[in-house]
């Protein structure tokens, strides 16, 4: 048993760090580290830079153009990218539909859809939730009726993250209305530019536009866009969820946020002294830091089990719950740290290039909006309560 990284892993970390120093554009870095808005151009731009380096698919096997890194290397890569302030890679192609197409798609689908995920040429979004189907996903109603060489899709999806930029959406659709719940669901790839697809924004509590409703009205989808077998979509969706959750603990990003919080609390004053030295605040901060230390080891335990080819299991639920609790706790402390200056809310101050003047310290501007925004984390990706159901059934055997 050894908790230190091997010399090879350490060398790999150095290599990633050197690459980030040389290739991560300064303006991207500043936005991420400053908690400012990252544009879709930044997201795609960073994917393209990685692709040129051959690192566009950090979690993908080499056979599909990926790096072939083991889970620990992927972890190191993500940690270093987060620390350096790289934009977050879009998970929808890389971690969701990509692995599903590799595992269940046919060769034509693999040739058509996998390369543009790596190159950043296609932007995927995830069409799962519906107005009446959130945690109870299997109750979904969007239907796809086979009509010759096409499916005719009708229905409404919601909470579709960044659909406004997406060129493709992967959907769970009902193909057999007679079958019970999970049994009649299929996994369908839909071009967002198809006639009959409408995207409507949902404005969130921080004023941001991250998620959307997506409507399908008599959308004709070629039958060749069905992944795997008809009515087997639920199996593929479950496979995908396992992959999605593996890195959801967000250790690297939380470490970066913790470091930022320490800087902020070092600058803020209470009773004329740095807030960081206030015993109440210091104890709260230490509590989160300690839990993050523990979660990092738990995460590495899960990854090394995965590296031994044990598939990501229900332990991923534990990582999701604890990881999001820590992410949220860090934003709470950020709000607390800036005190009354958490209240001024000016969206323009969160845009890169804002010339000021700021109300209060610059580090206070994104605090409350970030706190509000991060409430989503314990709700998305299977709410934390659903994760507890999974733990209950699969780990505790209840």
């Amino acid at each position, binding site marked *: 048993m050894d908790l230190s990284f091997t010399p090879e892993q350490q060398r790999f970390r150095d290599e990633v760090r050197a690459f980030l120093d040389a290739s991560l554009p300064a303006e991207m870095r500043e936005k991420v580290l400053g908690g400012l808005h990252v544009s879709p151009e930044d997201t795609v731009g960073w994917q393209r830079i990685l692709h040129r380096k051959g690192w566009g698919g950090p979690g993908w096997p080499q056979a599909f153009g990926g790096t072939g890194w083991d889970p620990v290397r992927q972890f190191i890569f993500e940690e270093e990218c987060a620390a350096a302030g790289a934009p977050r890679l879009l998970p929808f192609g890389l971690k969701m539909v990509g692995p599903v197409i590799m595992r269940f798609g046919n060769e034509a689908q693999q040739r058509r859809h996998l390369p543009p995920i790596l190159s950043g040429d296609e932007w995927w979004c995830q069409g799962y939730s519906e107005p009446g189907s959130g945690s109870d996903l299997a109750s979904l109603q969007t239907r796809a009726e086979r009509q010759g060489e096409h499916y005719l899709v009708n229905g409404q999806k919601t909470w579709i993250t960044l659909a406004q930029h997406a060129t493709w959406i992967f959907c769970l659709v009902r193909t057999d209305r007679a079958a019970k719940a999970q049994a009649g669901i299929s996994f369908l790839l839909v071009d967002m530019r198809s006639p009959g697809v409408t995207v409507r924004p949902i404005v969130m509590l921080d004023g941001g536009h991250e998620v959307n409703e997506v409507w399908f009205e008599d959308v004709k989808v070629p039958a060749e866009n069905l992944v795997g077998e008809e009515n087997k979509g639920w199996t593929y969706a479950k496979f995908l969820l396992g992959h999605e959750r593996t890195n959801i603990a967000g250790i690297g990003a939380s470490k970066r946020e913790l470091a930022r919080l320490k800087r902020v609390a070092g600058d803020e004053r209470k009773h004329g002294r740095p807030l960081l030295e206030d015993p109440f605040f210091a104890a709260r901060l230490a509590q989160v830091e300690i839990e993050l230390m*523990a979660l990092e080891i738990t995460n590495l335990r899960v990854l090394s089990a995965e590296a031994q080819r044990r598939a990501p299991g229900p332990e991923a639920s534990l990582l999701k719950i604890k990881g999001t609790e820590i992410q949220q706790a860090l934003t709470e402390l950020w709000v607390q740290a800036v005190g009354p200056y958490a209240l001024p809310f000016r969206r323009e101050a969160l845009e890169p290039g804002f010339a000021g003047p700021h109300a209060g310290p610059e580090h206070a501007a994104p605090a409350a909006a970030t706190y509000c925004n991060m409430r989503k984390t314990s709700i998305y990706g299977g709410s934390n309560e659903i994760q*507890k159901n999974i*733990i*209950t059934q699969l780990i*505790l055997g209840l």
Partner: protein
Amino acid sequence: MDFDLTAEQQLLGDTVQRFLAKEYAFEARRRILRSPEGWSRAVWGRLAELGLLGLQVPEAHGGMAPAPVETLLTMTALGRALCLEPYLSSAVLGTALLAAQASPAQQAALLPAMAAGERLAVPAHGEPGARYDLSRVSTRAAREGGGWRLRGKKAVVLHAPAADHLLVSARTSGGEADEAGLSLFLVPREAGGVKLLSYRTIDGQVAADVELDAALPGDALLGGEGTAFAAISSAWDRGLAALCAEAVGVLQATLDATIEYTKTRRQFGVPIAKFQALQHRMADMLIHVEQARSMGYLAALRAGEPDARERRRALSAAKVVVGQACRFVGQQAVQLHGGMGVTDELAVSHCFKRLLAIELSLGDTDHHVERFIAASVGGA
């Protein structure tokens, strides 16, 4: 990065677990608990035969030190069985103190006998009013003739009534809370002027408050005069790692008992494990147990770290996570057992009390949050 055990470690872990499952089941433990001695010399002898009492003994004296992973596995197994034997006090803390501070001749005289289970030596360090502060020692040692006179009072000395020797810290110079000026003395428990107020702790271990007004020979001093603090501090960190590993065993046993109980206890016509309010509580318990397990690994692998600040930071972080797990899992286990949880009849109440004792031993959660902050200043 590797969480695997070697084949030898796996074998050792399995062996001790099998032995305890057979010899230390709930009823056997209850008999030991109710015996006048409060622990079992027979079990102690078996632990010696398995080589487990020599895990902190250097190889030169017939032991296996350093053996962090073996200690982790042993402590977790002892925790699972709620063992009452003086393993932490004598085989970890006492042995580590002697290995760090005693002269080669003293080590040769004592350590092989400790590894063989023939001698027990436990630290007598804490004092009334010192709480968990390792340097706050008022007991004084003064030269008298060719020897020493020790005067003072030691608080809650675990397994003192079981020990042959007490390893008593005393101030030979310096102020009440100075790290410098602390010395360590080997004091036979039966020496004149050593008075024990013996009792059981809440979790059933034997312990005593010790009053000292004792004349000791010159060679009772272990190591250099005034130099004991570093040895005490590093032995305590090894003890912390062992205690965290023990906690993981108790926590897992507590969670297992709770799952089992809720599957069999029926109300409203169904096993109460079917109720989501209870299921989610058990999921939360599991998260605490797994986080504690992770920190148990960290503690074991950092306990020998030479950089004292790095070491303290890791071990205090571990004790915080473990202490909070002890509190949450213990309380929820009793709650989910309902009325049966507050009886003496089931294992759960015994687990609950051990978890409480662990939480309060070698520094409670607040103490370690404070120590973590102090060790982090200027650091990562």
